[in-house]
């Protein structure tokens, strides 16, 4: 087991096989290549994508089907190739890949970036934040207002 420091979850023990690799980093965080995925059972279905090298860097993520049950992946062939799958067809969510969206707080609202989901190859745990091609999904899909969250 390895351990890493985190801002939100204390020190974590993790098995090296659970590391998720982003060969291209994430847009805006291109140097961050290794993450682990964290779950707090009482906060299901939220997931947390924690950088292994920067304790402060942690993203909140939701499985795409929580927000958009009919979501259709339209990845670029380059992104499909990057995660080691056949670029001639779109990967299947829940079969070939996990697909999740990152949440952000802006203007007093929590929004999700449906335009650029995190897509992880389930077999190899190689992932990419895949900006969708020819898609109309919003980069700031409204999930909740801050008031709704504080009231809970």
């Amino acid at each position, binding site marked *: 087991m390895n351990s890493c420091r985190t801002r*939100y*979850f*204390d020190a*974590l*023990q*993790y098995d090296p096989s*659970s590391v998720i690799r982003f060969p291209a980093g*994430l*847009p*805006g*965080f291109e140097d961050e290549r290794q993450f*682990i*995925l*964290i*779950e*707090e*059972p*009482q*906060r*299901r*279905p*939220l*997931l*947390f994508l924690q950088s292994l090298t920067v304790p402060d*860097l*942690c*993203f*909140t993520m*939701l*499985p795409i*089907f*929580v*927000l958009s*049950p009919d979501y259709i992946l339209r990845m670029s062939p380059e992104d499909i190739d990057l995660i080691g799958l056949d670029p001639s067809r779109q990967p299947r969510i*829940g079969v070939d890949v*996990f697909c999740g969206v*990152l*949440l*952000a*707080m*802006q203007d007093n609202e*929590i*929004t999700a*970036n449906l*335009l*650029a989901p995190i897509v*992880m190859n*389930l077999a190899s745990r190689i992932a990419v*934040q895949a*900006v*969708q091609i020819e898609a109309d999904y919003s*980069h*700031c899909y409204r*999930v*909740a207002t*801050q008031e*709704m*969250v*504080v009231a*809970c």
Partner: protein
Amino acid sequence: MLIVRRKPGESLVIGDGVEVVILECGAGKRVKLGIIGPPEVNVYRKELAITQRQNRLAAADVTDAQRLAPVLSRFGRGCSRREIDMVRPIRVGSAKKY
């Protein structure tokens, strides 16, 4: 916004060293562009710039989003237990610093 009409094969020059060539247009409302410029000028789709900005917001502080779980129940349908188990997340108790 400056609006310019161009045909395939024609081009535009931006600043000192960037040339945008219209290669194809028409099929499926898509336009194929060629861009010639110095290597120090980054060229990327606007969606990527938007995602960079959203990611910086997303990374700023996760505590509000962490409190989101009760709100999510209103979405009803959601994902199955299996979908989360497939990604083998590390299970922790309660996060610190709320």
